[in-house]
């Protein structure tokens, strides 16, 4: 299949890629650009682990063609937190939240997920957080039922969802109160 040269705007940066027309955004993010924070699983838009934001809307990147994302603003989990000068990147794996990771390097949703114990294995969490972000941007004062509806396309097998829902509600309060500017 012939390849197309495309330019994608991801996390406020421009990326060039050479892709076949049938390549998914998920595949390009993970394989070509190394943005593996966007997860892969069912490849059928059922589980939601591949959720990213396209022009602010949550989409399953496993069924979204990379060529269709041209000219749109894509946000992945790596780009959720506001970029700040002089901050060391978050540390990986089992490293603690030490001096390298200032608390305000996290988006309120990310911080709330930590504070509420909403993270277990963590594999669904990037998609879960981005689905929540897209919903809260449109509905800053949601009820619990609304949050549950907004996240119904994101499967989590570890948490039973309760602490995730609590985290999203707490983050909504914090974001709406404007104590921390959202990106």
């Amino acid at each position, binding site marked *: 299949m012939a390849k197309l040269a495309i330019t994608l705007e991801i996390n406020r940066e421009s990326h060039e890629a050479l892709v076949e027309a049938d390549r998914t955004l998920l595949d390009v993010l*993970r394989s070509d650009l190394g*943005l*593996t*924070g*966007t*997860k*892969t*699983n*069912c*490849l*059928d838009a*059922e*589980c939601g*682990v591949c959720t990213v934001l396209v022009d602010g809307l949550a989409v399953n990147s496993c069924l979204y063609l990379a060529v269709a994302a041209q000219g749109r603003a894509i946000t*992945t*989990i*790596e780009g*959720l*937190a506001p970029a700040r000068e002089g901050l060391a*990147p978050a*540390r*990986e*794996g*089992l*490293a*603690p*939240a*030490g001096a390298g*990771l200032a608390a305000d390097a*996290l988006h309120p949703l*990310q911080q709330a*997920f*930590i*504070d509420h*114990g909403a*993270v*277990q*294995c*963590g*594999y*669904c*969490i*990037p998609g879960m*957080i981005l689905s929540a972000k897209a919903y809260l941007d449109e509905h800053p004062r949601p009820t619990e039922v609304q*949050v*549950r*509806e907004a*996240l*119904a*396309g994101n*499967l989590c*097998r*570890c*948490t*039973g*969802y*309760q*602490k*995730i*829902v609590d985290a999203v509600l707490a983050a909504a309060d914090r974001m709406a109160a404007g104590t921390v500017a959202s990106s």
Partner: protein
Amino acid sequence: MSVGTRVVGHSLPRIDAPGKVTGRAVYAADFALPGMLYGKVFRSTEPHARLVRLDTTRAAGMAGVRAVISAADVPDIRYGAAVRDEPVFASDIVRYVGQPVAAVAAVTLEAAEAALAAIEAVYEPLPPVLDLAAALAPGAPLVHEAWQSYTAIPILQRDGNVCNRARIMVGDVERGWAEADRVFEHRFTTAMVHQGYTEPRAAVAAWDSSGQVTVWSNTQLPFDVQAALADILAITSSKIRVIVPGIGGGFGGKLRIGVEHFAALLARKSGRPVKVMTTSEEELTAAYPRQGTVIELKTGVTRDGRLTARQGRIYFDTGAFAGSGPGVASVATLVLAGPYRTPNLHLEGYAVYTNKTNCGSYRAPSGPQANFAVESQMDIIADALGIDPLELRLRNIVHEGDEGPTGQVLSAVGLEECLRRAADAIGWPDRRPGPGRGKGLAIGWWTTTGGSSGVYVKINPDGTVALNTGAVEIGTAALTGAAQVLAEALGVDLADITVVSADTFSTPFDFGAQGSRTAFAVGNACRAAAAELSRKLLAQAAAQLGSPKEALTLRDKHVVGPSGRISLADLARQSQQAGGGMIAHGTFIAPGTAYDTKRVEGHVYPAFHSPSFHAHAVDLSVDEETGEVTIHKYVVAQDVGFALNPTYIEGQIEGGVAQGLGQTLSEEIVYRDGRVLNANLTDYKMPTTLDVPRIESILVEHPGQVGPFGAKGVGEPPNVEPPAAVANAIAAALGVRITSLPITAEKIVQATQGGAR
């Protein structure tokens, strides 16, 4: 619960959370190497057949294909944890739809998939064994004609399609029937269900020029995978390095070797790194799901509700290979006994071969199935005798000092407290508060699996602490719990501890993320390491502080004495100058649990170690028109011994119940004629945010004797009782008992419109 402790007992955030919320944590599915190929597995399309021809030549010649392997390319060995009955690739006979027959590696996933389509296999059908009844029928075709030639754990009781019969025998059930006023007999069935982890099984393998292979995989048991690979690759285990970068859920489904061997074999053949990752279809047709079961349960009781005898048989449809079946069948007998005093028992667990996927272990293996039968029947008995179900349980539950079914002496038994508090929380005894509404209880007990754990703990020259463990952080925050134990013992903060884990080359041995054991066992190994470090630190500080070491303590990141203090950082720096660094090796092995060997037969798990006890209580409504179940309140009271980190124990409870509700109400791998009909996540229905109610957790603390600060295993137990608790509430709501899982809306409507049963 945290009185007098600084770190343990507190709901501190897990130490690996930042990487997981920012997307920086690397999972096995994310792992890649330069020049890596993509491997795919060619699988049987027949449930039982002779493989008369396999032609891979066309596939091997296709563009981008770098390796094709089949049985002819691998050592002729069979592997398996209990029975060595499974080949890497089928050579002459295929035994389930999905069994690996060949594998390819190519430069892209698309090229590998195209190569699969070019492989030709010709089968000659054999009579398949499609369910338990067919497998156990007289004269049934054998799934393994050569079963007697297989190597197996010697104590297993095998016979034809039965790859183990485990038994507990206590007293004399005939006497028990004679003493009973009523004898109840029921039959229950449960469906095959999948663990549902969100990260597929994945492995990347790469060989180096010295003949060592490194495998990055999301296994729960890196050391077990290392040993299995040594057999399959026919090389010594020290040439195999297994590293777990990160794991997106497992729940038992990632215990045994999954795709690691395909990656390693293809990498050896091609000379390139190879990645193999499963699809959802492969997960639902060729993984290690929970066995479907048939359970026959007969229980004798006196008029006043005292249990006199129980006879139970639970049959596990373990699929084409034994997998975890022989062990699961053993554990099941302890669950069938229930946490009850019953003087006469005859309990049997059968693991049975059929032509389906090889079943394995899934969170509390056998627990939900056996408990569903036991606790459903307790409610049936209560109603038949006119005794309140809570009261019937209170009259029969075990207490401190009682014997378990195999003679183990029970201690730290928090069961009565769990039962009363759970029942109170849903407003018992008002059991049928309105039309279509009912409440249910279920209780159970579970083990804290032993096995050994080692840790290396080092004090860094800046006073922080490195914890090096072979354990896998599967997601429960168990290693945060272990680190809390270490921080408490060393007098440092949790934030001072960094964990390195799960690398068979460089981390000490660990029995793995299984059996609710990680925080328990690794926590104890941390205590041992801290004791050794304390001894060294105090000895080193004594001269400098001018005090005998008996007068010194570890506190606030210092060794503190009556005349002054010295920091751990200073002591570590001194040790680096003069003593090779401040490091200790802490180990733990759970002590054996004494039991009566005469009571068991074919049993590979004869006692529950540091057992936990728990009660679930649910209040729900059922719509008789649609069969829809709405849960108003779900309460779990669990005796956790000591809550090392209450937030993450709640997380275990909430998640375990959610998974249990899936098994109870909607999940089933549906087989017809040996083929899975719903091998996708649309038709395999796992609970979403809209299906799981809020769950109230009551943490009961009766400290055990072995675990750190009295902690007991907490990960598996919440998965045991949901089917029974919900079934009992539905029966209370409808007056109709459903004895088969899942209790789908369809079954409810059929039951209510068709009368009883």
